[in-house]
């Protein structure tokens, strides 16, 4: 799992590369727990190269969801692969989180 941060003025883009399993979700949790993350208006997650997400990985997003909402930070996923999207959908997260097809749409939100 590789996580790349691309910050801009108002937006933080995290590119997830690889499999988000129990061990790599710790890395993600560390990134998202950073207080500076809440200074952005939007946090975009690029899921193009996210091949797999385990329940631990989902748990990381779930645990930060409320925190982001309270701070007024939008959490947006884009470029999500079909099978990963399926996992979000089955769990019902698609109704809670913003998942859009492309980066332009994500940026436009």
């Amino acid at each position: 799992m590789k996580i790349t941060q691309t910050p801009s003025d108002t937006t933080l883009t995290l590119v997830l590369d690889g499999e988000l399993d129990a061990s790599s979700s710790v890395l993600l949790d560390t990134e998202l727990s950073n207080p500076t993350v809440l200074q952005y208006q939007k946090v975009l997650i690029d899921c193009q190269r996210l091949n797999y997400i385990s329940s631990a990985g989902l748990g990381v997003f779930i645990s930060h969801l409320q925190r982001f909402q309270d701070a007024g930070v939008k959490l947006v996923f884009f470029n999500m692969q079909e099978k990963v999207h399926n996992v979000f959908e089955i769990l019902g997260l698609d109704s809670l989180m913003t998942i859009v097809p492309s980066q332009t749409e994500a940026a436009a939100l």
Partner: protein
Amino acid sequence: MQQFLRIIKQAALPLAIGSWLLLLFMMLMRTGGIPKIATLPNWALLVAQGVFAGAVFLYRRYQPDPLRGTDFVGLLRRLVLGPGLLATICVALHLVQRLTSAQPSNPAFFTIVYALNLGLFIVFLAYTCYTWRALVLFRAPYLVHKQWGWFELILGITLLLRLLNINVPTMLAGIVVGGVAAFGVYLSTHQRWVAYLNRRQKFVVISLQLGLLASLGIFCLYFLRIQFDPLLVAPAPQHAFLLLTVFFAAFYALMGILVTLFNLPTAGVFEQKREEMLNMQRMTQDIQRGQTEEQVYQTLLDAAVQTLGADAAWLRIDDSPDYSGQLYNLEMHQAEAVRGLLDSYSLSEIDYLNNDLGSSGGFQQLALPYNSLLMMPLRSQKQQHGALFLFREQRQGFERDNLSILQTFVSQTMLSVENLQLTQAAIQNERYKEELKLASSVQDSLIPKTLPTDNWFEISSHAQAAREVGGDFYDFLHLPGRRLAILIGDVSGKGVTAAFHMAQMKGIFHALMQENPLAKDDKDRFPLPSKFMAMANRALVHCLESSSFITASLYIVDYENGGFVFARAGHCHTLYYHSLKEEVSYFRSTGLGLGIIRTDGYEKHIKNQFYDYNPGDVMVIYTDGIVEARDGNKEEYGEDRLLAMLEKTYYLEADQIKQAILDDLNAFSYGQPIHDDQTLLVIKFKTAQPGSSA
């Protein structure tokens, strides 16, 4: 040969005594002490003398080895105090008598004393030579054993020389005798035994060998004095043989004394090393006996103080919960001051030796009553456990050598401590395993063992946890009015935490599916699945950690009305075979997992779905461990394969369908570890037999 040797062994003593008596008899006859029977030729006396010497040596040779173990002092003492003392006293008496009385003695008496002394001298020489043999051959290589054999043989030949009266030229005789003497000198270099003596024993040995040399000297003096005595009636004994044995006996003793003398200065070092080795041995044994870290550390302190002669010491242990160390002749504040000083010099991590504390600035101010300090960190490969400080009052109290001794002690100790820790960790591990086993069996009891049976459906189930305990669960509950509640779920994560939440979920299930006695309508007596999920969500919010969630599906099957209602809270889609349409598909309803939304408003995210089933319909419910099982290429089993399997098997019995799916799954993921809990339930609806309803 064996026979011959045995005869010689047995005959040696009587032969020696007999030949000596014969010799005495013949000599007395010559002096006229007893009536003369015949004129005796010289050779008769010489033969008797030779036989006597040979028999005594042979007798001595076949006595058991006089050396017992490494008791060299005992060996020499027996030699000097036994035959040596006896013979010496005898000769000395004679000398004293000769010196005090100027009168020529009675020839007969003189002859008896001479014969007696000659016998004793030869006995004494035999004892000495064979004692030396024991020392020469002590832990000697085989070659030396052989050389000794040749030496004996040559000495035996010299015994015959005079007997045969061969007239050898003086030059040649000198060379031969000189050669044998050189051989004796060579054998005298074998003084290996001296190394096994301690300082005190070396002094004793030197005095014993001096005593022995004195005895030899007295004998020689005696024989030299009487050599030209007119009273001497016997021919001079076998010169070469006696000369050589005397020479060898004396030279070996002399060499022994010299070697021992030269060894004396190093005896102290040798003993110290020996003491260290013994200490090391003792310590190794003690350490192995140590049951706790504290005992092991105390042994280290004792051994270090004792071996290095420290006047004060401090053993500091940093990482043991029950033992912080020990002080010996030292106050805590002094110890801490020394430690602080070393820390400030950044010396606390390395071995430190200071033999002149009084003249090093920092230590001077501490005003310790000690002048030498040796500090060694207790370090293992992994970490530093503490440090050992040793103090001595005198300057130059510790040597560089001491460091290596101490290092040996310390590494020995660290090894033992780590072994102890490993053992304790292993015990602890074992305990965890036991508890996990217990947890596993407790969890096992939470999973229904007997499946509900009725004539309108059949159920088959399979559950496999990835670890000892898992987060998958399923349960059944019969409700009044021929209804059956089926719950399946999966707690995020694995292991013990998941298992706790799974148990919680089971409790919630049984608590919420109770009949509501206040309900007016029959429908409201039990909560609908969506209501159940909402209530469960509320209950779980308080006990799930923020990154955990639970997915679940609750089905309530109503046989009387031939339908079922279910709600899916983020759980895997239900696979279904519709017998009327002859079609397999997933129920794709929406629904959010439990514990994700922690505020009110969950109900918006969960829906009930109603369906009227027909006999022959098959429902497959499962957890994600089934569809997310992977093959060697990391590909997932997936919903499509599962669907295809049901298309192939829907007409079979529930049990057979389940088995077919599992077989296919196992073939797919063959060789891969199960990385998530797997649960699979297959329910097949049947036409109820008329009149056999429950």
